[in-house]
């Protein structure tokens, strides 16, 4: 701890002060503030992205409220409770994933949803949180850095649910879920040598995967990425239009509600996955940079929480949650800007949608639980 004290002068004093309301509610204000700014800003962009539909904005506010309550709830739970309940949550999620092919309802050629009568939900969304919890809990049973046995056990935990989700098929979510698990392994100290070999293996398997694993529509997305002009009115349309929206925004942007690409319906999915293009068109590069900065603040705070965590479980979990958030931002902004294939990834906390809003805020709630955990060792 001595090392960190150098970086964190006064951190101990903070804990000796009297409890504030935020401490009482287990809130991390340094995390919450940029998150709230992002959410409010997101509403402004969403209003424009939905072409001035206040109904959409109100529904999103409701999503945000539910998400914030979930976050608050998650922040109250003791870290040890998460650790103990992680296996139960994980295996319950796997069970639900197995149910999907039999009882699931489909949309657009894929079965991803389970219906609970009044509401539908995607078990894969629960897995987004269950996965890092489980893998982090797994490593608390072993020494860090992990020995090969622990490592391969963890890999198994990652691969099985990822494969189940991939078979729905939902390759995008599958990769993101796998990533959230993998980040735990990475944070746990997976040796660089393993990482390098895994990267090499991945590169080598790309060609066979292309030939045998990827479905036509998935290949199409990759091809479209490489050359959107090849299919101007089909698969390439979205990318051409989103790049046009972004590019035509320039430095200053066209002004709020003034984006022609989004308001004249050229831009697809302007409320959900492609909402960054609305922001880029109307607020310009300035707006994009501000957005990146806010995400960076949240991410840095997440890592900070990880560094300050009292237990190995907390450290791994905080790092993984933060990296997962980062991957969402990167993949979403990358795909809309045409440097990554189009996969269904929303822009965290900004895109319209209840599920992603709640899952993300839930994971941030876990982060706050880590952040506000009592300092057992110090005291």
């Amino acid at each position: 701890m001595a090392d960190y004290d150098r970086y964190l002068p006064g951190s101990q004093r903070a804990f000796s002060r009297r409890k504030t309301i935020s401490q009482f509610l287990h809130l991390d204000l340094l995390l919450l503030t940029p998150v709230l700014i992002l959410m409010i800003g997101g509403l402004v962009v969403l209003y424009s992205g939905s072409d001035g539909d206040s109904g959409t904005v109100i529904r999103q506010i409701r999503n945000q409220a539910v998400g914030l309550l979930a976050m608050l709830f998650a922040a109250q739970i003791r870290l040890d409770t998460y650790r103990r309940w992680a296996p139960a949550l994980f295996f319950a999620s796997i069970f639900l994933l197995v149910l999907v092919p039999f009882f699931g309802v489909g949309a657009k050629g894929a079965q991803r949803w389970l219906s609970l009568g009044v509401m539908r939900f995607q078990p894969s969304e629960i897995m987004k949180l269950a996965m890092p919890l489980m893998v982090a809990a797994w490593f608390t049973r072993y020494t860090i850095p992990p020995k090969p046995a622990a490592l391969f056990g963890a890999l198994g935990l990652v691969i099985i649910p990822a494969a189940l989700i991939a078979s729905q098929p939902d390759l995008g979510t599958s990769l993101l879920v796998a990533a959230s698990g993998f980040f735990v392994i990475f944070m746990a100290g997976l040796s660089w040598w393993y990482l390098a070999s895994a990267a090499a293996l991945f590169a080598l398997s790309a060609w066979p995967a292309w030939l045998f694993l990827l479905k036509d529509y998935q290949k199409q997305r990759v091809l479209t990425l490489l050359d959107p002009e090849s299919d101007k009115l089909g698969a390439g349309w979205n990318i051409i239009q989103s790049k046009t929206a972004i590019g035509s925004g320039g430095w200053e942007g066209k002004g709020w509600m003034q984006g022609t690409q989004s308001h004249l319906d050229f831009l697809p999915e302007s409320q959900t996955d492609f909402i960054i293009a609305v922001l880029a068109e109307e607020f310009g590069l300035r707006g994009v940079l501000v957005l990146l900065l806010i995400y960076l603040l949240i991410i840095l705070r997440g890592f900070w929480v990880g560094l300050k965590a009292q237990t190995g479980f907390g450290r791994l979990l905080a790092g993984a949650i933060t990296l997962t958030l980062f991957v969402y931002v990167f993949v979403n902004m990358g795909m809309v800007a045409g440097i990554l294939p189009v996969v269904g990834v929303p822009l965290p906390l900004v895109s319209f949608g209840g599920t992603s809003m709640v899952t993300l805020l839930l994971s941030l709630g876990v982060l706050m639980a880590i952040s506000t955990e009592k300092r057992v060792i110090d005291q």
Partner: protein
Amino acid sequence: MSAGREALRDTHRETVINGVRVFTAILIVVLAFSALAWRYYTLQIVQYERFLTQSDRNRVRLEAIPPKRGLIFDRKGRLLASNEPSHRLSVVVERVNDWDILLTKLKTLIALDEEAIERFEARRQYRRPYDAVPLKLQLTEEEMAVIAVNRHILPSIVIEAQLTRNYPYGELFSHGVGYVGRINERETAEIDAEAYRGTLHMGKVGLEKWYEEILHGTVGLQNVETNARGRVLRVLDSEPPVDGDDLQLHLDLDIQRAAFEALGDQRGAVVAIDPTNGGVLALVSKPGFDSNLFVNGISNRAYSGLRDSGDTPLLNRAVQGQYPPGSTVKPMIGLGGLEQGLITAETTVPDPGWYSLPGDSRRYRDWILRIRGTGHAPQVDLQMAIAESCDVYYYDLARRMGIDAMAESLAPFGLGELTGLDITSEKTGILPNTDWKRRVLGQPWYPGESLSAGIGQGYMLATPLQLAQATMVLANRGISYVPSLVWRVNGNPVDIEERPPLVASPEHWATVIAGMVGVVHSTAGTAASIGSNLSYTIAGKTGTSQVIGIAQDGVYDEDEILERHRNHGLFIAFAPAENPEIVVAVIAENGGGSSAAYPVARAVLDAWFSETQNGGL
């Protein structure tokens, strides 16, 4: 228990590893965010201009506003070609997901034939994907209602309002005015694509084609902002179209109708001209067709019906039909004889009913021989030869003139060359001479052929329009004008063009015209039967032209001959003889003789003079 395990672990090493990993992660995040920032910088700053242009091009579209086609009126201002509002069904190709499904759906709602689909396929090649390409024109009220109700399942369909050419008199003016039709593939390649943006029809035949340029007008353009589905949201700026010019014709509905009805079921043509300015008052060719059939694409069956009909309704007989003029050329040749000094008004020729060349036993018969068994009179002079259409007199005159002098005397009347009427597809006819025969047939001219030419037979061919023009020359005693259909463009009279005058002595004109008056007004005149109950004088000339050659001693018997081999009946006339107001030329195809033609001319003249007397123009 778990706490005990934790205690065994090397916490210091764990935190170090974690610290290294976190900083690695931060490095990755910063690098990745830098890459994103770089990417957005490239799009928004480096390529800004390009994408801005692209986004403007996306939303702003240049749309054509087709001009209104000029209207066509008759000389009294009655509408002969109008533009009627109609609705068409168009398809925005880029919005069609499945062409077969769309067609199946549409076919359950409205009648859609294969031809329309083929035409659509051909047309869409030239259109941009967001353009609406017409599939079915002239929707009925019912069809529009059906489509409106099913609009939600047909997102790629648009209903467009437009103006469609309409010919209220149908067949009556099919050959006088012509028609417009949809621009076909060949024409698409030829026309100025910019000028015809938004225009579907163009003049195909007749006046509509001749005046296409001024009838069409100038296309207007507007910049419109559209959404991704091509719907126009607002007009940014526009340059209005200039509508086509209106044409007022010399054609007169009443005269045209009189001619049309007088011909009845008779195949043939009537051309009436105002000799004071060359304006064509009537231009009838029978049979005709309903011009409206062609406007929105005639069906193949209907078209082949017209094309393959033995009655050739598509042929504009008035300007394309070439017939031997028969005896109608006699006044003109007579004038030539007088002018060349070969004959005088007093010159007589003995008429036994036949004629033969010196040293040749072949007999050239006069048509009267079959009826009377003798000639017209023991001695026939020019006036009588014209009034009674004496062939023997003209055989003799033709022999003495020779073909070249004859052709020379006929040329100023405009035979053998285009009149220059403002209508498409006019034919020249043939005015033969020795040169012509050597050039075209590679044969020398035989003296016997001159005799045939002297009565307007043999190689000589003329169109009804040419005959009407020649009659105008006679009527005006040498003065004539290039015939024209259009009188005024947008109210401004078009220039009248005078033809080179035919100068001849007034006495010679008087002699010839007296002969022509005799045709109708003398008891033995060949058209004396229309001479009764006349309030005006008619100068005319009958003609009968052979369709097939009759053997030297053969007898033409109307009853025994195939209808298609019967003689053509012709009649040319002008009236009043002293101060002509109207000239008319009639051909009754296979009418048997001129008696099928002159009543038609009388009906046309009556129509004209009843109007004049009733205080018309």
